[in-house]
């Protein structure tokens, strides 16, 4: 039986006290952490706002178009001709068909030339001719579309003596060619050398390798590029002003002036009549729907490319 002479005080286990420098560090970290969080929030808000603002015009346009134009859209709109001023109803059948014809002929002219030129650039990229063509097609790509209209007017409308759908299509094709050329070149360049060599090693000639293996492998990408180009020219107004000219009447002849949706929208929108304003809104809605549809198709084609080929 032994009692300690001196009772030991019960001390809780001591935490090591932070040193001076540790405390300073913690304080600094707290301060900078707070600041970093603040900066982060501010940046997220700024960039998020920018992203929303970037899409606002489209949403605003769509909203406005639907509000103003939806009421004028009916079966008549697609099947009837415009009515004279003062009469209610009527549609833009001639403009819709005209735009389809213009774009169709432009694609028929522009796609083969554009794809061919792009294939040439990709396969013979280092020659002097290729460099010149590439440079010129970049210049052409940046050319204002009204200049394309003047070009077609000078070379087709003036010699023939009157406006025509063909002149309009040529102007649109001239816009399309550089776009298709450059996308085709990019897509063909993405085709692995290994595939090309495989075909050559099987005894394929060079042109046959290009046309079958290379072009076929790049097809999905080229289709996407072509659709984007078509969507862009479908809404062009300026090149058509003094080429296709527009037509109040039904015409599907390439040698005659032809109606086009963008031209009709322009004419109707600047007119003083309310019925025409409504038609202009509806026409714009249809045009934008068409472009959206083509863009969707382009996305679909792109997805098919990245999804592999399947069967």
């Amino acid at each position: 039986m032994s009692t300690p002479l001196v009772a030991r005080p019960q001390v809780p286990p001591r935490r090591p006290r932070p040193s001076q420098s540790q405390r300073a560090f913690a304080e600094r970290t707290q301060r900078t952490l707070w600041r970093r969080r603040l900066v982060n929030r501010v940046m997220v808000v700024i960039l998020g706002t920018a992203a929303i603002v970037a899409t606002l015009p489209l949403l605003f346009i769509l909203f406005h178009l639907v509000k103003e134009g939806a009421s004028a859209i009916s079966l008549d709109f697609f099947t009837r001709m415009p009515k004279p001023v003062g009469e209610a109803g009527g549609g833009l059948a001639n403009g819709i068909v005209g735009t389809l014809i213009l774009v169709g002929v432009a694609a028929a002219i522009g796609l083969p030339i554009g794809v061919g030129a792009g294939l040439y650039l990709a396969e013979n990229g280092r020659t002097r001719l290729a460099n010149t063509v590439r440079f010129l097609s970049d210049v052409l790509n940046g050319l204002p579309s009204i200049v394309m209209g003047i070009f077609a007017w000078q070379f087709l409308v003036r010699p023939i003596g009157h406006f025509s759908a063909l002149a309009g299509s040529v102007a649109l094709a001239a816009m399309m060619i550089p776009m298709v050329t450059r996308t085709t070149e990019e897509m063909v360049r993405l085709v692995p050398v290994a595939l090309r060599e495989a075909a050559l090693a099987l005894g394929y000639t060079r042109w046959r390798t290009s046309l079958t293996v290379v072009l076929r492998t790049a097809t999905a990408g080229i289709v996407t590029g072509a659709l984007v180009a078509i969507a862009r020219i479908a809404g062009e107004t300026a090149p058509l002003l003094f080429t296709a000219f527009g037509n109040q009447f039904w015409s599907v002849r390439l040698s005659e002036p032809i109606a086009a949706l963008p031209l009709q929208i322009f004419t109707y929108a600047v007119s003083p009549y309310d019925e025409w304003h409504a038609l202009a809104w509806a026409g714009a809605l249809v045009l934008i729907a068409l472009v959206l549809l083509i863009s969707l198709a382009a996305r679909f084609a792109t997805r098919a490319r990245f999804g592999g080929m399947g069967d």
Partner: protein
Amino acid sequence: MRETERGTRNEEAATARVGTEPEARASSSSVLGPRPASPHPGTVHSEKFSFWYGPKQALHDITLTMPARSITALIGPSGCGKSTFLRSINRLNALIIGARAEGRIRLDEEDIYAPGTDVVALRQRVGMVFQRWNPFPKSIYDNVAYGPRINDSPSRAALDEIVETSLRRAALWDEVKDRLRQSALRLSGGQQQRLCIARALANEPEVLLLDEPASALDPIATQRIEELLYELKQELTVVIVTHNLQQAARVSDYTAFFYLGRLVEADATNQIFTNPREDQTDAYITGRFG
């Protein structure tokens, strides 16, 4: 550059190889009977062949014989010119701008670098398989049918037969016969490589060039390719570039050692690996450099 006596060693080496592991070899699929002897034996012979990429000389005076019905392995460190030499045999190098060749490579008696040579016809006679398998993004059937279809447009039935025969020769038929219309890209790496071999075989070539065909494959797939090569050499000339010395020792009858664009030594594989004449060869195969 030394000329080696090939003809006499041919028989010897072949029997020696068969003697080492006959069961293993025989067990691999031999579904075809012996092929009728081709009128072209398919011997490849290069004489003082040199090759330049622009100003840079990649090959110096290569003189080498690759005998028919045997496997010749080209070995050497990276950049030694063995792939360049292989690609010179079907003139795939000629595509490179600024490339230039001197000397001769003969397929049997024809000089394939003679002016006026039909390169397309040459490439049908000399098939090639690449390091990275490169099937076309098409169906299995279409991949194999690609060469015959364009080169001598056969009938449907004939094409079906060519496809089946080629796939059998490449030891792939049993694995794919139920899904010939499926995308070739869905096969495994080893299967895709054998498909590429089948695709080359469909042209009925006399010579088959392989550029490191198994370097990206796992050991099992590699073994299948090696067994396949052993089958194929009964019918054609096989030239294989490999970085894998064990592979060269296992599959080849003859081995040629390249270094810095020169042919250092070429001989029967047994000879090269057991008793090389040149110190450089000895150093390379024993792993002292390269």
